């Protein structure tokens, strides 16, 4: 199996707080991998580091064997740094989020971030902007009609895929919660990713909806040849869907492996103690 995403010794430190500590993980092609951990474990920070929202303090991230991020503690961080492997990396390669998306990583957000003034349809359409061939002149003077038409068709197709075609002209923010989550997925798909990061896609869903979501994620993985990395608290979904699971607590990896292995791991149980597994 080909490696799609690989994190090596990634540390993210904000001032004196270490949010992600020396994390290494791998995601292979076609897999569905889950990242779990108690609240505040640093899961979303991992996503933010992968997608370039935060610049990791130390470590290296490879995407399809290409260096997407490489960093070492600099400036003030030199003194403050509390993580490990400080001397390993010498280069500083930092890519901005849009560049990373262009390379083929798309994401959804835990606290839904739809474009609030736009309709459902426009929300998907805007994500197609990335793969445009037109420039600002041709776009303004309508010399890109063909492309524009293709964009619209594709966007509609994606909306059908997630079952939102009947509300396409409504304001995105007027949709119910579950549909907004699906719209976020459609929007992410519109950027034509190979790796999809889903940040708590099932948050706020009832068991039935969660089951549907499980099927849906599998479906889009197959249909769009995706690799999926997801953060989730719904353990049913995680155990159902995941090929492999990484568990982190306080920014550190405490366990990894197939669902069965992780479920049996005492460290995981300890970490989750006091946290109900089935919400």
């Amino acid at each position, binding site marked *: 199996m080909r490696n799609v995403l690989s994190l090596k010794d990634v540390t993210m430190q*904000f001032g004196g707080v270490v949010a992600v500590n020396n994390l290494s993980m791998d995601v292979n092609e076609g897999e569905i991998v889950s990242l779990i951990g108690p609240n505040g474990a640093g899961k*979303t920070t991992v996503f*933010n580091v992968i997608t370039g*929202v*935060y610049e990791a303090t130390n470590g290296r991230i490879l995407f399809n064997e290409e260096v997407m991020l490489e960093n070492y503690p600099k400036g003030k961080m030199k003194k403050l740094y509390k993580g490990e492997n400080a001397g390993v990396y010498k280069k500083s390669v930092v890519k901005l989020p849009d560049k990373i998306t262009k390379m083929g990583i798309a994401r959804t*957000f835990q606290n839904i971030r739809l474009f609030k003034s736009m309709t459902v349809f426009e929300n998907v359409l805007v994500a197609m902007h990335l793969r445009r061939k037109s420039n600002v002149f041709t776009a303004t003077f309508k010399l890109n009609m063909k492309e524009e038409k293709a964009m619209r068709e594709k966007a509609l197709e994606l909306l059908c895929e997630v079952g939102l075609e009947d509300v396409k002209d409504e304001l995105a923010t007027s949709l119910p919660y579950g549909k907004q989550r699906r719209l976020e997925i459609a929007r992410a798909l519109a950027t034509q990713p190979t790796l999809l990061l889903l940040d708590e896609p099932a948050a706020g869903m009832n068991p039935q909806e969660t089951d549907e979501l499980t099927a849906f994620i599998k479906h889009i993985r197959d249909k769009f040849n995706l690799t999926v990395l997801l953060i989730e608290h719904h353990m049913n979904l995680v155990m159902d869907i995941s090929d492999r699971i990484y568990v982190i607590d306080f920014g550190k990896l405490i366990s990894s492996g197939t669902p069965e292995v992780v479920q049996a791991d005492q460290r995981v149980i300890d970490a989750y103690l006091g946290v109900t597994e089935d919400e």
Partner: protein
Amino acid sequence: MDFIAKYLPYLLAGISVGGQYALIAIGYTMVYGILRLINFAHADIFMVAGFIMVYASASMPIYLSIPLVIVLTVVLGFVVERVAYKPLRSAPRMSVMISAIGVSYLLQNTAWYVTGGLAKVYPTIPWISDTVTFMGCTTKRVTFITPVLTILLVVILVLLIKYTKIGIAMRAVSKDFETSQLMGIKINTVISMTFIIGSFLAAVGSLLYFSNYATVTPTIGAMPGLKAFVAAVFGGIGSIPGAVIGAFIIGICENFIKAAGLTTFSDAFTFALLIVVLIVKPNGIFGESTSEKV
């Protein structure tokens, strides 16, 4: 000619105008610290304070009109906040800023209407307007009073913020608006207090400024206001000592640029400095950095 005699007047002018900017700048920086609002109307409150003095001193003795000016300016600052900013508490920041521009427009136009658009001569305040000679150069006594008074007021203010209950509340609100509200801090009282302090200092600043430059016009506030704001940004907005140091630096630089014969750029310099500071050190010299949570 002797070096000191040649350049001392520029330095003195710079320090005194710097002190006056500082008093205005504190109003900007405190309001920004709490509301994240560039209070464009602040410069016009300063201007109105000047006009109140002109009209007050025409009908009553100076020792009555000075306290009156301060009281009325404080009231104005309070009313502006209650009328123009409070209703927009939950609105986007841009709306509040536009409201501030609107208030500034209103105050200027009202002043224009009341005065007929003509410049008014500021009354002479005895003693502080007297001419004194210092190391061979002649100047008004207010030149020396300004920096002393400014620093005194700033020290008092800093102590106030550090040790009094309302001061602690102010600091809490500027750190986190919502949380301090949940902690039972009366947010409106704190904000009003900020405006009251800011307006008080603007009134004092206007007394000193116009004693030195004795003409008041409806648009007089614009330039000192902008410069004071730049000083606030320069020192790191939200930081009172920063604003004061920024104001003195700007006041002194400005006068030496004029001395160098580059008068066209004396205002432009301030803004160039601003842009450079913003780019190199976006949070100013004493500012704290913040980042958005995703």
